[in-house]
């Protein structure tokens, strides 16, 4: 990673990648300092999608704010909803019924699959394979259909409410989930055939954008990026929520911490998510779906932090209450934003083409970075 200077003292080329660029996944602006095609440094400029979500929270009641969190990481809206609900439930000391927790697990795992599928498709597209993205979207569509049947929206689902769920599962919910799992496992094999052993894919991803465990910890990077560096850290195991301790699953890890390992980790997570969904659907208990929450919800004065393992990493919500119906302050710890910090470190010494691959492999959603 040494940034050796070239013999000729040429000016470095400053390339503005974005905010309008086909592969910055939204409106990220990266100022690249180039020596030929070699990257000497990368500065991220963010904020093009800033909507002041945290400020909006201060002017909405707890229930009213729930749909807004879906719009941060819109690819994994269900996970966002879960994180927010958990934080507020901790604050208000609300007991969530078993059934609701189980449905929450199923939906968030489905959402993890959908989010990883979108990552895989766009990542492959960035690296130049234009077909996986369509296959991925096909499978993702099936997930979105389940969401739509369950809660009436496909992307910004607003599936969970404080205290549990609003909607009871629909008639064929269990059947749909099982059918999806069976079908999806076959499809993952196809992606593996398309990419995992493909020499061009391996060449493009192996040894690219290495971020070792120490650097991951220094930057606070979480999620698949951390696990690809060999750290077995998954909040679902480390501090279980929603009854994750009841399910039997593994934490896939790799050692290299490069783009290929991150790819492998996420591909493994597909299988683990499918495992969790199968177990959860089979053990779906009967009972109420919503705990006791008064219509005018006023949590006691205090503060609460709840974090979950979102598809992209640790997603945390910190809520401060002054006893009124509206949060006094709400702070989000978005995984994309934290993981994006490592971009500069990962990019140094790479080629322009690798920057694209690295942005893809961090798996950022700009709605969450800028909030």
């Amino acid at each position, binding site marked *: 990673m040494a940034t050796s200077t070239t013999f000729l003292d040429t000016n470095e080329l400053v390339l503005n990648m974005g905010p309008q660029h086909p592969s910055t996944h939204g409106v990220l602006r990266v100022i690249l300092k180039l020596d030929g095609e070699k990257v000497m440094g990368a500065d991220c400029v963010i904020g093009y999608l800033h909507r002041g979500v945290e400020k909006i929270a201060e002017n*909405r009641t707890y*229930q*009213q*704010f*729930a*749909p*807004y969190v879906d*719009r941060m990481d819109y690819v994994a809206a269900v996970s966002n909803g879960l994180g927010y609900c958990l934080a507020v439930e901790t604050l208000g000391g609300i007991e969530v019924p078993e059934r609701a927790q189980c449905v929450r697990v199923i939906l968030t795992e489905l959402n993890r699959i959908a989010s990883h599928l979108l990552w895989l498709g766009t990542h492959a597209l960035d690296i130049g394979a234009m*077909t996986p993205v*369509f*296959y991925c979207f*096909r499978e993702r*569509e099936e997930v979105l*259909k389940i969401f*739509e*049947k*369950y*809660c*009436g*929206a496909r992307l*910004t689902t*607003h599936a969970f409410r404080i205290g549990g769920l*609003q*909607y009871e599962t*629909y008639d064929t919910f269990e059947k749909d989930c099982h059918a999806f799992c069976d079908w999806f496992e076959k499809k993952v094999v*196809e992606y593996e*055939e*398309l*990419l995992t*052993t*493909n*020499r*061009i894919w391996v060449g493009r991803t192996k040894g690219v954008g290495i971020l070792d465990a120490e650097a991951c910890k220094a930057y606070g990077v979480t999620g698949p990026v951390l696990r690809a560096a060999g750290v077995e850290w998954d909040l679902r195991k480390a501090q279980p929520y929603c009854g994750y301790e009841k399910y039997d699953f593994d934490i896939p890890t790799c050692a290299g911490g490069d783009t290929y390992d991150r790819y492998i980790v996420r591909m493994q997570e597909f299988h683990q998510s499918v495992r969790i969904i199968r177990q959860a659907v089979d053990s779906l208990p009967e009972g109420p779906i919503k705990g006791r929450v008064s219509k005018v919800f006023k949590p006691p004065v205090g503060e609460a932090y709840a974090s979950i393992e979102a598809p992209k990493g640790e997603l945390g919500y910190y809520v401060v209450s002054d006893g009124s119906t509206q949060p006094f302050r709400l702070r989000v710890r978005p995984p994309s934003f934290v993981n994006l910090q490592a971009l500069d470190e990962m990019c140094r010494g790479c080629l322009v083409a690798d920057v694209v691959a690295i942005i893809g492999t961090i798996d950022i959603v700009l709605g969450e970075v800028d909030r």
Partner: protein
Amino acid sequence: MKELLKAIFFVDLIKGLAVTFRNQKPSLIYTEQYPKERPFVAERYRGAPRLNVHPDTDETLCIACNLCALACPEQLIVVGAERNKETRRKELTTFTYDVSRCMFCGLCEDACPVDALELTQDFELASYTREGVIWDRQMLEEGPLPTEYKH
């Protein structure tokens, strides 16, 4: 040795080619030809709002309680009501719903105590003007009239 032979004969690449070749079957085509074909819309879909009327009497079910307006995070619902002198009950006069600001979270329909306000399966909400997306009571009761596509 086996690995080397595999590399020489491009086994990894041919495997990928086989996947794309297999997927060429016309029956596997997944896209819909909207608007020629109508998309799948679930029963619970949260689309265009509707103000339900009694099926027999055509009278509105809304009791003008204003709960939907209070529940709405965007405060886009305005309920106008008048107290009827004879029956001493509030009666709905106007009801506006600004669809352009709506994020279809469904909190209003959850709040409605009499199932008068409902989000329906209609999803074609485009309008040529900004005024066109602010729906009044009449429009909410009739529901949107999606354009029929001939081609």
